[in-house]
């Protein structure tokens, strides 16, 4: 087995049975709210992130229901605008940017490199409080009248024309940015300083590589959007001339500053999922990952190139034609590292010994959705077709496939994969596998018709379309899909929570996976390992043939489906 947890020299006793683990080490609310344990902070994040996901999801339901009729069903235009803004802002700033790194990254990263905690445990706790403050402010802004500027907050609409709680919401997002920056700094410092002896850079799990690249984007990109949002607040409050031509500012400047962060930000959302998928695919193919170095370096390439393509959001916004050409070329090149990953994951499955447990089905679903999302990016990177497609439902479909498909499928894959580690309990894997299929089908039924709507020319952010009733059939399909998808998101809440009370004990390593996190108890003790781990080999040295029987036996013992 790859990595070994060795006892101090001479000591060959087995590890003592744990008396407490991180969950049972203190039961008071105080012990949770003041914890500096990265695993507890991950759980705090899991709870808050799930709350905002449900909230954002219910707004999505309202949008979809409204659009089944060309004349609208339930909402006034103003209310509709506030609903889609709340949906976008909550989903992007409070779920997509946070879910995988703050929950799974926080939980697994130190375990995976054999560290006792993140480099700055208190700053980690602070980042959760910043996130909570951000969420609260956004929530207040939504409840007390709402925000109608769209999650992109384009000026001068957001700065001078909107009569809604834009400033309050932006203060929330601004504070949330600091939560992101501190998380990024923490990951980078941890990877540099806290690796166990023998954990060289190229023995690190790909999950860690992905989070390292994500940390870089968080640290370098987030300050830019923070400043941009501050500028909008200043313009709204003090009429400083920054973005509004009426005051002498430049409205397109906002778009440059906003996308300089927000394009890389989409990689904050999907890079961590790439990490999850790399782990899950090797573990359930029981095979060493194919092209480890290429996957690791493609993460860094994405982080770097991601900063150079922001202008592809502005092909029709009056930036110069030559600028556009450069942005288009780099955007096309950015497709290559994403393709490298998909090809390498596919090759990992080749000659593997594949177990279709729920995390693996989510991972396969991820590949399907990401393929469609990434390939439709080509239509938008291509300046000719972008002129027709930009800002239509084609964009909506594209970014839901990459961001939502990417992040949510990655999050669910990872949550199922590490759930036994986090809680010490097994969930009903059969239900989970069927649910993964429902999510995949529901997702496609929801968003694929939107590509057609976009190609037909339906603009995004439209409250109704009575002047173009030919859009109705696809809108109805999409709403049907959203209903199926909603079911697929709610069912896991039930079987995962049930598992906490009724689930069988998971044992330390129910999937027979390699990697340091599987070598400690489930749930891990507060200090992660009883003995300091020493790493002696690569992470992914699975042997598909030799370990096969062993794995089946393990699954049989546990009564889980093999």
């Amino acid at each position, binding site marked *: 087995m790859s990595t070994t947890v060795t006892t101090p020299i001479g000591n060959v006793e087995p590890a003592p049975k744990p008396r407490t683990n991180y969950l049972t080490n203190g039961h008071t609310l105080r012990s949770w709210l003041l914890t500096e344990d990265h695993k507890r902070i991950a759980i705090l994040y899991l709870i808050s992130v799930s709350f905002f996901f449900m909230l954002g999801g219910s707004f999505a339901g309202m949008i979809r229901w409204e659009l089944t009729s060309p004349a609208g069903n339930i909402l006034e235009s103003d209310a509709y605008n506030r609903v889609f803004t709340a949906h976008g802002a909550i989903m992007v700033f409070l779920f997509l940017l946070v879910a995988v790194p703050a929950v799974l990254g926080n939980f697994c990263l130190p375990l995976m490199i054999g560290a006792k905690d993140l480099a700055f445990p208190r700053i980690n706790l602070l980042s959760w409080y910043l996130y909570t403050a951000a969420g609260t402010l956004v929530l207040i802004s939504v409840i007390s009248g709402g925000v109608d500027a769209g999650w992109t907050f384009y000026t001068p609409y957001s700065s001078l024309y909107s009569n809604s709680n834009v400033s309050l919401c932006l203060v929330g997002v601004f504070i949330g940015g600091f939560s992101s920056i501190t998380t990024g700094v923490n990951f980078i410092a941890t990877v540099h300083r806290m690796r166990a002896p023998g954990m060289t850079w190229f023995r690190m799990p790909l999950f860690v590589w992905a989070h390292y690249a994500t940390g870089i984007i968080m640290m370098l990109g987030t300050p830019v959007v923070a400043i941009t949002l501050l500028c909008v607040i200043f313009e709204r409050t003090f009429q400083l001339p920054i973005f509004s031509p009426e005051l002498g500012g430049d*409205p397109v400047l906002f778009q440059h500053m906003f996308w300089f962060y927000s394009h890389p930000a989409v990689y904050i959302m999907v890079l961590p999922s790439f990490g999850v998928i790399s782990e899950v695919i090797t573990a359930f193919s029981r095979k060493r990952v194919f092209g480890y170095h290429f996957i690791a370096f493609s993460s860094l390439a994405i982080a770097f190139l991601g900063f150079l393509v922001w202008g592809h959001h502005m092909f029709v916004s009056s930036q110069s034609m030559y600028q556009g050409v450069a942005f288009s070329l780099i955007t096309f090149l950015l497709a290559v590292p994403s393709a*490298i990953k998909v090809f390498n994951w596919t090759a990992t499955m080749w000659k593997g010994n594949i177990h279709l447990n729920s995390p693996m089905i989510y991972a396969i679903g991820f590949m399907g959705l990401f393929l469609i999302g990434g390939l439709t990016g080509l239509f938008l990177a291509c300046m000719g077709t972008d002129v027709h497609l930009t800002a239509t439902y084609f964009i909506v479909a594209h970014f839901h496939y990459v961001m939502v498909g990417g992040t949510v499928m990655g999050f669910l894959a990872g949550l199922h994969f590490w759930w036994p580690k986090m809680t010490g309990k097994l969930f009903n894997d059969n239900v989970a596998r069927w649910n993964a299929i429902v999510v995949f089908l529901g997702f496609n039924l929801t968003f694929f018709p939107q590509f057609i709507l976009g190609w037909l020319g339906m603009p995004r952010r439209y409250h109704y379309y009575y002047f173009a009733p030919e859009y109705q059939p696809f809108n109805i399909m999409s709403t049907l899909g959203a209903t199926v998808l909603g079911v697929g998101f709610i069912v896991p809440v039930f079987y995962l929570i049930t598992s906490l009370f009724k689930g069988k004990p998971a044992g330390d390593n129910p999937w027979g996976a390699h990697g340091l996190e599987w070598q400690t108890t489930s749930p891990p003790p507060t200090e992660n390992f009883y003995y300091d781990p020493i790493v002696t080999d690569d992470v992914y040295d699975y042997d598909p043939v030799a370990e096969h029987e062993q794995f089946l036996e393990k699954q049989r013992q546990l009564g889980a489906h093999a």
Partner: protein
Amino acid sequence: MNLANFPFAPPAASNFASEMDTLFYSIFGLSVFFAVVTFFFVVFYAFRYRAGSSADRSSPVYENMKMEVIWIVVPTILAIIFFGWGAKVYADVRIPPKDAKEIYVVGKQWMWHIQHPNGVRENNTLHVPIDTDIKLTMISQDVIHAFYIPAFRVQFMVVPGRYTQMWFRPTQIGTYHLFCNMYCGAQHSEMGGSVIVMSKKDYAEWLANNGSMRQNLTPAQAGEKLFTKIGCANCHGPVDMPPRAPSLAGLYGKTREMTNGQKLLADETYIREAILRPSEAVLKGYDNTMPAYDKQISEDDIMSLIAFIKAGAMPSLPASNLAAGSAGTEAQVKGKAGLNANALEYNAERADATPTERGSSHAVGAMAAEKVDQKR
């Protein structure tokens, strides 16, 4: 909901549609190919190598330079090909033919104002003749909008404070959707209408019969009236008069040198800036005496002024001003006060006539503008 209501592609009604569609379907074909092949392997492996199957798993490979190079190089080459093709189509869309018929568009919450070359104006509907190159020169009076005609495969943002252009040649008679495709506030979804492509004969007839609105002046004619009315003609005559004021005859398209040494091309945006904020860039050889018309005149009127300046001929100066000429500070100060009075008068007149055009419909924006005025 019948099947005629179930289209899978938008109508194709402009010169751009066919090449854009070829490009679209080529990328579509490429994508389907990659998606199907890759996902086929994923699913195929998942079955072929499922746990316990008797598939051959001997000598598995973990690194293979040759494969990596192939799947890096092939997508890169394809990417560059499609980049080039897309850039070419984009350049066609962005560069209008020289002799295109120019129509002016002003976007504002939540309406499109359209001005045809002979002065006919319409809202939310754009009539165009078939097989004619049409160039739209567009600006917004408030927030960012986007002028989008799906059947023509063109759209472009309509930005406050700067002109953007878009062109097309309609090729099919019919009525097509016109949308605002940049979220712009409460009634964003309603900010649209139709583009009506007519035969050349019908269009000519339509133009001729639609004379009731705004006295049927061409933009240039309207501009000439304004030029005198709001006081431009007090200083700008048929010939240059340094240091008082340059003539604007033949200005459009010239390169101008500023007092700070900057060289600027006199295009629409330059002229607009010179009207709204003249002191930001002062022409070499002239004093900074021109009043700023910022917040004093509407985008429609600036359009007309530009059309007039483009047309070239300048009225001669009123005799009294000519005498004051370059005679000195006192006269200049007087002249300036007079101009401002003119502008204010004009403003009051407008406020009476069309209150909504002055922006009262968007409270915050109007308020902001007021505050700035007070500071001045």
